[in-house]
């Protein structure tokens, strides 16, 4: 079969402009996209840069975008794409800096981010040196599921925060953190949660669920992030802005039956955080000018507030 490819190209270096190269290749019927790339590099263009390792879909090294859809170039067959006619577009995945052509910078994209979340077990010392530690398989299954992650980066490529803030640690690294937090053999839970609550950590996730949608391993990174946040509350690790926001939110609804937005803004910044509060002033002034200011001391209970408070109480009791 003959197939036409249009491949993203970029020379290394900050100033270089990206472009495209087109190639026509003769391929066997069962060829995958990486077969095509290998053939192009061998026969037509030795300068073409791309990664790949296992060739059988389990290592995650060759993730690229093929016709706009992220996947593994070793697992995507060419034939159905070629049958549609036109060019098959191959590009680097989104949200990752490109070094050269399809070779992205996994260091800054993922490996360095994993490095900051304390990515190793701190044994709790419960097991004797030679004895087996008895652990329910259901508990282990959750750890195994997290560790089935093959660092393909698809969750990070689908993430909606990373395009606006590349410093966000991202769902893949957070999944790695979750692997330790759900492991009963680890004893560093509090320390881990304190690392995760730092800026650019778990509270920067906007739970858009794109990560879970994109993950080919059903690891559910978003659900895991939410779970870790809950864990932080349970451990009383709530001095971070978003945690304060959650607290203020819940308190307001509990007390008045609805949201006190003025108080929410102030309490989220922190009552002693003068710098943060100053930042609110321009927004507050604009709101006042337009008659839309939520003035905290004017906030009053809404009808039915008692019922709402009881719902919250019940939900919290169930949680416990």
């Amino acid at each position, binding site marked *: 079969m003959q197939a036409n490819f249009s491949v993203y190209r970029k020379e290394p270096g900050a100033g270089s402009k990206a472009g495209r190269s087109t190639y026509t290749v003769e391929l066997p019927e069962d060829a995958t996209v990486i077969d095509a790339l290998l053939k192009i590099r061998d*026969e037509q263009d030795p300068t073409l840069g791309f990664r790949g390792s296992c060739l*059988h879909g389990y*290592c995650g090294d060759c993730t690229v975008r093929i016709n706009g859809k992220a996947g593994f170039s070793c697992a995507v067959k060419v034939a159905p794409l070629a049958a549609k006619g036109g060019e098959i577009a191959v590009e680097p995945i989104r949200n990752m800096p490109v070094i050269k052509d399809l070779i992205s910078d996994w260091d800054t994209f993922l490996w360095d981010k994993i490095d900051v979340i304390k990515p190793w077990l701190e044994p709790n010392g419960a097991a004797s040196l030679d004895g087996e530690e008895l652990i329910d398989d259901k508990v282990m299954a959750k750890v195994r599921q997290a560790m089935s992650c093959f660092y393909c980066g698809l969750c990070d490529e689908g993430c909606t925060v990373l395009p606006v803030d590349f410093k966000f640690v991202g769902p893949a690294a957070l999944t790695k953190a979750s692997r330790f937090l759900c492991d009963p053999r680890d004893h560093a839970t509090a320390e881990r949660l304190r690392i995760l609550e730092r800026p650019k950590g778990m509270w920067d996730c906007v739970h858009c669920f794109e990560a879970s949608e994109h993950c080919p391993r059903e690891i559910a990174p978003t659900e895991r992030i939410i779970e870790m946040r809950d864990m932080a509350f349970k451990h009383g690790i709530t001095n971070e802005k978003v945690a304060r926001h959650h607290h203020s939110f819940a308190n307001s609804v509990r007390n008045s039956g609805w949201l006190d937005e003025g108080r929410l803004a102030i309490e989220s910044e922190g009552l002693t955080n003068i710098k943060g509060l100053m930042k609110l002033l321009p927004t507050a002034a604009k709101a006042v000018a337009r008659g839309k200011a939520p003035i905290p001391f004017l906030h009053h209970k809404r009808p039915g507030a008692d019922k709402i408070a009881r719902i919250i109480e019940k939900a919290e009791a169930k949680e416990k």
Partner: protein
Amino acid sequence: MQEFDVVVVGAGAAGLRAAIAAKQAGAKVALLTKVHPLRTNSGLAQAGINAPLGPDDSPEAYAGDILQAGDGLCDPAVVQNFTHQAGDAVMWLERAGTPFNRAAGGRFDRRRIGSNSRARSLYVDDRTGHVVMQVLYEQFQRERIPLFADWFVTSLALEANRCVGVNALGLRSGSMDSFAAKAVILATGGFTRMYLPSTVSMGTTGDGQNLAYQAGVSLIDLEMVQFHPLACPGGKGLMITEAALAEGGQIVVAGGQPIAGLQGATRDKICLAIAQASRNGAGGVWLDLTMIGRQKLHQRLPQTLDLIAKVAGLDPAKDLIPIGPVAHRPVGGIEAGTSGQTSIGGLYACGECACTGLNGGGRLAGNILTEMVVFGARTGEAAAAYAKSAPAAAFPAGRLDEEKKRLDALISAEKTEYTAGRIHAELGALMDAKAGLLRDAAGLQAARDQIHALKDKYARLRVKNQSPIYNYELVSYLELGAMLNVAEALVAAAAARKESRGAHRRSDFPARDDRIGISHTVVRLVQGEPQVDTRPVVAL
């Protein structure tokens, strides 16, 4: 130039374990690897990791199974020593956080795979290697060992029969550097990419074996190449774990009739039975997993289910999966002692690139990961101890410049009639046909001649890509050179062993022949040619 006590080359399970052990023994360590640790071929190991930890098991029983699979070619002292350390080495992994599957009551669950006489393989679903690699990498990160990922080692620095470091090409920077070290550990993995099709990753090209061989170290039992019986040709050598058989799968011929006598058989026997059945006009051989049921498949073999669907386009809950033997792992390799020591001072080897005499003619299923962590740890410790006591040796001046010139000379815009890819494709087909599952004298002679011809073409081949950064054309070129050299040595070894034993099957010498003496095949490079010798196996 960078200076370390111990430099480890290769970031699979053996390399990571060695680096961790060397660091914990007090050495200043660096690890160089052409591919990130979590993308290495060690992730291919799926079914489990052996350790004689069960109440019905013992190091002696375990040793018995290893000796059986090795078909008379194991060194019994090495085996005994290994089986006594395997339990601790695997428990170390558990303590470091490997989430092994548990049985009711929370104890380790164990699988009985391949020719193990007991359920002895601890496992993590069907991705044991993948998860063990993560745990090893976690511990590696904890030790804060400098990682030079995307670095390709181009040569060893030798000085008076001692290895004092390596020269390497940084793919990302596009520049060469030298790494002085008192001890160098080769942990570069196997070489079966010289066969096509093959189950292994692209980088499994015998780089370490070639470095050692060129330096004058012997390669042992190279003719012993394990084929994997459950590879799916539709998935281009996609390997299906033997755990699939442990979970109830069956190997069947047309009409769904199972091939008899494969329960608990060694890999080479299963491979031969499949090849035999295909030749007998069975119309093909299939793996039948349908009786396991979708739910159990999802639970017990999630990765297998997923890969067969994505890579081979089949549904194991409904479809029979066509299978055949495909080149998988070498059993032989760099001659190394149980602490990884080689015949060159300061040069060590461990893991799949090394041959310690543990596996003899065939590796017991479930042993590869155990072997990597046991010998990885020991080699790391030994290299650190050597580095502590070894006298200082200067990195040979000018060696880096010589190496840069050598590589520069390879790059030329001149057109050649051949490409590296085509030479590789020819080599792969040749090895599969003539030095594959079944061999004979005429075929091996033809293989030898054709490898010579390919080496001639290779000598005229040039690298056209002038751009230094991520020059994968250059990397492929160097890998191909390693494969050609090791293939030549392998074919010489296979021609010399005139019997069938372990993974080495000769149609012209179909039986095991103990009268000719039970010996290892030893290949050494003498004046540019492989020279084959034998070394008797030492009985206990």
